[in-house]
């Protein structure tokens, strides 16, 4: 019952396990295809008009599977953010990063990294632009950057 006693004998297991998932994206792959072309799309249900992000093939409002892709533009407003200094094991090779939630004009909110501005200069309400990126493994993703003054 001794706490923090470092000398307790433990058995270091001989078996290790690596998990890596193949995640199906076939029903909404257009999102990733368009992202590669610099467009930010999401799904709109053609039965009830509901727009969803993350994109989903089945409408959470009316359960219809009929949908179309809509371009929601690239401009968002910063809702909230944080600067992650202690990162998970699989991000060990990444520098600390800022995570933001941005809200688009149609009310859709998106969570992504915020790049191109030191966290001390991030401000709730500031204008952001979403940009496409590609990881070193070739996977597409997106980030926010501060919008250029117009």
């Amino acid at each position, binding site marked *: *019952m*001794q*706490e*923090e*006693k*470092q000398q*307790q004998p*433990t058995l270091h*297991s001989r078996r290790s396990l690596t998990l890596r998932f193949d*995640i199906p994206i076939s029903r909404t792959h257009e999102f990733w295809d368009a992202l590669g072309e610099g467009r930010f799309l999401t799904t709109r249900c053609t039965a009830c008009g509901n727009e969803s*992000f*993350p994109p989903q093939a089945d409408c959470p409002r009316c359960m219809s599977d009929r949908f179309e892709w809509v371009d929601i533009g690239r401009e968002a407003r910063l*809702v*909230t*953010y*944080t*600067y*992650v*200094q*202690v*990162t*998970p*094991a*699989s*991000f*060990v090779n*990444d520098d600390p*990063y800022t*995570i933001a*939630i941005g809200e688009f004009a149609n009310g859709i*909110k*998106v*969570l*992504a*990294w915020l790049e191109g501005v030191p*966290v001390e200069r991030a401000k*709730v309400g500031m204008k952001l632009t979403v940009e496409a990126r590609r*990881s070193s493994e070739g*996977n597409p*993703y997106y980030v926010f950057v501060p919008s250029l003054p117009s």
Partner: protein
Amino acid sequence: MNRVAIVGAGHSKFGKRKDVNLAELAFESIKQAVTDAGIERKEIKNVVVGSAGGWYEEALPAVVVNEYAGLRSVGTMRVEAACASGSAAVKVAHDSVATGESDVALAVGVEKMTEVDTMTSVELIGRAGSYMWEFENYGMTFPAYYALYAVSHMNRFKTTEEDMARVAVKAHHYGSLNPNAQFQKEITVEKVLSSQVVAWPLKLYDACPLTDGSAAVVLANEEVARRLTDTPVWIKGIGYSSDSANLSKRDDYVGLTASVEAGKRAYQAAKVTPRQVDVATCHDCFTIAEIMAYEDLGFCEKGEGARLVREGQTEIGGKIPVNLDGGLKAKGHPIGATGVSMMVEITKQLRGEAGRNRQAPIKNGIGLVHNVGGTGHYAYVTVLSRGA
């Protein structure tokens, strides 16, 4: 539906428990709870084990725990509601007694989080949301989730880092009086503010630790409860709710909608109001979470949570004492055990057995357990009462 009482409570020492494996750790609480109840194990027909798992070697914790404790041929399952798995286990065990399926049921919460390295634990908790959209590319962490709420709360209500630090100071004060708590030392506001930033504005001392621990409660119907004890603690009402996996789908970031909903449902089921609650445990995985919980549960108005802390209203002698066991912050947060640990704490408070310098005055005989899973992904509120 039958009335259901907690008739036995058990709690392990929380901390880095390199001295025991999963089953041995759970056994510590099971033995205490069964002894406290004064029943034979053969009377227990139903065992529900709350455990999130993934960071310890066993894949089927319920059967491993039951085998070690000599609980054979019981109806059993492991339940998962992230950090509210313990409350979920109590809920399922409660229902088996309430419906008459069993006369006596056992709810066990157990977690061993320190058998893997710290960064792997950070990874596993960070995946608790929407893996695909918020972890895969962006590496969310548990502190980061709550930091998004903290920034919003600070921006909207002028809540400060000092306010949040005061929550940690309170937690450590009561933790120092609880022999089962992981942290036994008092801290200062300055120490919190100068600790390492983990996800700004949250710092190391705003955060609960990684913890090994277990807790258990024996539940019984009224007939059995009257036979066993003069001090049954009744489960008067349970409310539970949930919210989106993706944080981006939430309407706002200044409170947990799941907590508000679970609270309303629990108050309604128990036919009590927030004002009648004598003592509560609130889910303080981070200091901001406790401040939001005060507001979400109706202990104060939205935006007034920090004021409650500044005025000492959630300490003994205040309007509503909260987390007199040290909370998740100082007692520790073994994910699946936490909800059951909270039930044990409120049971002891209502029995008047909480211990020196941390017993709340009990006037109405009403206690409340607030247990959140993930970042408001799940929420459970359980109202307990003593007396007839």
